[in-house]
């Protein structure tokens, strides 16, 4: 066991994956960095996740691209149909708009349209998340939107071990997986098994047990939910925190089991206020376990507005620990 940041765990997982399988290639903008520039050093991605890969595995397998997301995400998709296992990076999920056809219609539907005749071992890595003043086009968290698309697996890990393990599972998967990394979590430290074992897609994790209220929290919200659980403890409320890890397929059984015990559901997610992940979970639980619910389920999400730039506005926009505590304690006493 060793302690690593989420960034370093992902980087190490890349190294392990690429050394174990020659058909894995990494594709994206500035992931090698400095292509075509004389001298200089490997950049390894704007967040350092792909650092050292080009030096070790060569430029044939670590491919810098023009700023042409449609062409290179599509290229990665086609490569996944023909013998490679590409890990393609879309620098920020906000940029998926420019290549959304290749994600929604090409990558997501290919296995269906082939009647399962080919696998599509495609991993799309991207970043997300507000909180760093990156404003409306570099801060979105569109996992709910992506999860509406049939054929996509969408994962949002919150710990270094999960991030690395999900990357491994994604590369080994039969269909396309979108791996969404919260920018605010790259520095997050965590203990990992050196082998960075795969984490199964579609399986959530009980982060902390509790009998009074179930908090389903995604990505950067997991830590805030745990903080909230500590504070709630002081009020005599025991919160159970669940990290679904995968957005779709959702580990609904795990959530239902918890709700059976607590009778109370709070979902904390950074994506859309309307039709986002929180709505998907609340709807699924309301439909499947209505009689287990002892109070109205609740959601903590940003409001239905683009991510603002100014610090005060962003702080208002992005809910934090306080909001979780308030909602959970209202819920527990409802």
């Amino acid at each position: 066991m060793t302690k690593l940041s989420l960034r370093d765990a992902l980087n190490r997982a890349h190294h392990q994956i690429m050394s174990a399988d020659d058909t894995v290639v990494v594709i994206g903008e500035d992931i090698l960095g400095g292509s075509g520039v004389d001298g200089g050093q490997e950049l390894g991605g704007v967040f350092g996740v792909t650092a050292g890969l080009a030096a070790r595995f060569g430029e044939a397998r670590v491919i810098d691209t023009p700023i042409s997301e449609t062409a290179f995400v599509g290229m990665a998709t086609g490569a996944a149909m023909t013998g490679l296992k590409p890990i393609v990076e879309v620098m920020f999920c906000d940029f998926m708009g420019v290549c959304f056809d290749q994600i929604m219609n090409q990558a997501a539907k290919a296995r269906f349209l082939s009647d399962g005749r080919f696998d599509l071992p495609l991993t799309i890595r991207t970043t997300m998340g507000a909180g760093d003043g990156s404003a409306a086009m570099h801060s979105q968290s569109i996992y709910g939107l992506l999860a509406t698309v049939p054929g996509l697996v969408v994962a949002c890990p919150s710990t270094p071990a999960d991030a690395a393990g999900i990357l491994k599972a994604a590369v080994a998967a039969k269909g396309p997986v979108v791996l969404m990394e919260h920018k605010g979590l790259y520095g997050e430290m965590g203990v990992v098994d050196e082998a960075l074992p795969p984490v199964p897609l579609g399986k959530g994790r009980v982060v902390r047990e509790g009998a009074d209220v179930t908090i389903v929290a995604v990505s950067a919200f997991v830590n805030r939910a745990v903080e909230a659980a500590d504070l709630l403890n002081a009020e005599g409320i025991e919160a159970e925190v669940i990290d679904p890890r995968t957005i779709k397929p959702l580990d609904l059984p795990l959530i239902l089991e918890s709700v059976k015990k607590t009778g109370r559901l709070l979902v904390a997610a950074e994506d859309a206020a309307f039709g986002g992940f929180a709505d998907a979970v609340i709807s699924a639980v309301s439909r499947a376990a209505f009689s287990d619910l002892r109070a109205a389920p609740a959601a903590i999400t940003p409001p239905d507005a683009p991510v603002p730039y100014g610090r005060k506005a962003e702080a208002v926009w992005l809910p934090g620990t306080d909001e979780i505590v308030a909602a959970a304690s209202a819920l527990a006493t409802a």
Partner: protein
Amino acid sequence: MSAETLTWLAEKAWFIRAFEGAIARAADAGEVPGLVHLSNGAELLELAVAHALKPGLDQVTGSHRSHGIALSLGVDPYGLACEILGREGGLSSGLGGTQHLIAPESGLLGSNGIVGGQVPLALGAALSAKTLGTGGIAVAYFGDGAANQGAVLESLNLASALKLPVLFVCENNGLGQSTASSYAAGGVSLLGRARSFGLAADHVDGTDVVEAIKVADRLASWVRSAGSPAFLEASVPRLSGHYHGDAETYRGNGAGPTDPFDRLPKLLADRDVPEGLVAEMKARAEAEAERVVAKATQAADVSDKALQRYLKEAGA
């Protein structure tokens, strides 16, 4: 071009034409779930390109108008017909349909309902060929209308920047649905576009099968040996409507395009083939196409079972 090649090509061409005719009749009879976009007019060009490819090595992606491309590559006509009719035995058991034909085993990686969507995918096949050192190349077919779509334009550049072994084949039939290419495409020529991205590019009259075979072969060989992309613009007529059933009221009453097949009999005669071969080939094509499509019409619709299989695997 040898007599053998020409005979092979003509036989296939008539079959493709006959196949599309049989599909059109099946559609009129209500046997086809969706709208079909027929390949009539582009057959010779597509066969010329197929002639330049290596089965088992090369992969092709096509547009919404890909029945002919599929047949040119040797995709099983019955499997194709069943897919177009949404029946058992279809390439994808009827899940995909006329616009989503997938037969990688015959070199058809896929056709596409989104104009231009197939083009980046071909780059992926080229990347695989290059990375895995298979010696294969990829071909991306698209229309003149698609040449104005970002996915296509980005792909021209990406293929050039990464030096990918891909042959872009732009079938210029002068129309994108009802809109003339002369209206929609800025600039003087699509070749100029391709060249501006650093691609080797050439134009061919796709109705001239002798030239088409030569140019397709030259460009495909170049892509294969140089490992770099090239662009082939082929003028072809759109002999039928945008889709089968299109009244084409937007087209003027001038003389319609001439059929490139009109030149085949003389070409064959010049090669000194047996008397009556043309009539024989045509008859064979008609009979075989009719048989295949009729048989497909008899096949069961099992697409619901295919859907259930998918749902089961997806856990949905």
